[in-house]
């Protein structure tokens, strides 16, 4: 159901626009692009490969966004802790601790 991995399009077959040579960490295989007819990839694009067919284009932008979100995990928390230390909130009627 689920084994699909990223590969980079090296070249589209000159005699068949639905067939491309794809590189997966230096292993090469012909992959069928028939499921991506609506949004044809070009050489240099990355696609998700499952049973020899390209299922989807991989968005580098979305991947970077995700990494950025993850990097910020914990940073948001750290920033919140810092702000709490400024004593801007009052809890239970008593003063919050100052930093």
């Amino acid at each position, binding site marked *: *159901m*689920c084994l699909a991995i990223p590969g*980079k399009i090296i070249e589209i077959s000159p005699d068949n626009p639905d067939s491309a040579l794809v590189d997966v960490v230096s292993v090469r295989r012909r992959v069928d692009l028939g499921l991506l007819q609506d949004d044809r990839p070009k050489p240099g694009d990355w696609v998700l490969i499952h049973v020899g*067919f390209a299922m*989807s284009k991989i968005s580098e932008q979305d991947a970077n966004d995700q990494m950025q979100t993850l990097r910020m995990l914990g940073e948001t928390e750290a920033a919140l802790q810092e702000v709490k230390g400024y004593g801007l909130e009052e809890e239970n009627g008593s003063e919050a601790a100052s930093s």
Partner: protein
Amino acid sequence: MKFVDEFRAPELITRTSEEIRRLVDPARHYRFMEVCGGHTHAIYRFGLKDLLPDNVELIHGPGCPVCVLPMGRIDDGLALSQQDNVIFAAFGDMMRVPGTHGSPLEYKARGMDVRIVYSPSDALKLARANPDKHVMFFAIGFETTAPSTALTLMRARAEGIRNFSVFCNHVTIIPAIRAILDSPDMRLDAFIGPGHVSTVIGCRPYEWIAKEERKPIVISGFEPLDMLQSIVMLLRQLQTREAKVENQYKRVVPWEGNRAALKAMAEVFQLRPYFEWRGLGFISQSALRIRDAYAEWDSERRFDVPGVRVTDPKAAQCGEVLKGVLKPHQCKLFGRECTPEHPIGALMVSSEGSCAAYYNYEHRKTAAATMLSQTA
């Protein structure tokens, strides 16, 4: 490896696990089901359970297309191929699955022409290369794989390749999730949704889970960071008492799915009125059959299918493990009569079956975690 290694970055994994610990309510026990067998495999392969707090429990769902196939269908496929000049072609996953009289590999040892293919298009290639034989492709998989089978059938018809047919066992994921939610034994808080199926069907088909059943569902990728981030997203929803469909696997899953893939499926397949799922019984509208226009490439119409129903051995608890009601080691046959070497059911054979995953990756882990800190 690009788009793989980044999602295994140790510091980010640590950071995400810490976020999970921050988000959990210590008074609560969370039960998240990962539907897809690929996620089950990833959990064990990456040791993700070691990174989660004890009160977050991952329950394995029925999203393993090999595991849910009743033995009778395997017998049928093998029976069809026993005729002269038939080549039985299937993915590697099928090769060790036991039928009543043996697995495809065992049939091969007894002289049947059995070939492992990586792609349905490779099976079609076999047909082109062997014009005096008939190639029967034993198709399995959820909606991730069905479009590729569909395209292959379209190509076979367009090229007039007559010595090729497909024995279709494609199943669909939504009815399986419904069956889980309808099951009285299950109590689940949220779902980790199948990332690769969703590249085809998109995220809309899951909306009823959030709206009607009020359970959060996050469509997840398969790398450690993907799954951990998905758990963060589920915990946040539960914390704020939301229930919605979220897409964690944005870099690959389009919200609307893959129209070309859905179109190919609609052209070649239609839903069977009902289909038997191992462990879940008969489920309506849950599996695909080949349309009349492609009847000539449908193994079930080219050949006579015995269609014998084979019930699982009474002692085997495949059904309960598939539904997540039992953990693999709680099945009475686990590790005794049923092991990867002599499997009783497909969950012990398929690499994403929970029993095989548990057996191969887990069951002898004892005080390993503490020992690790003592090694250099």
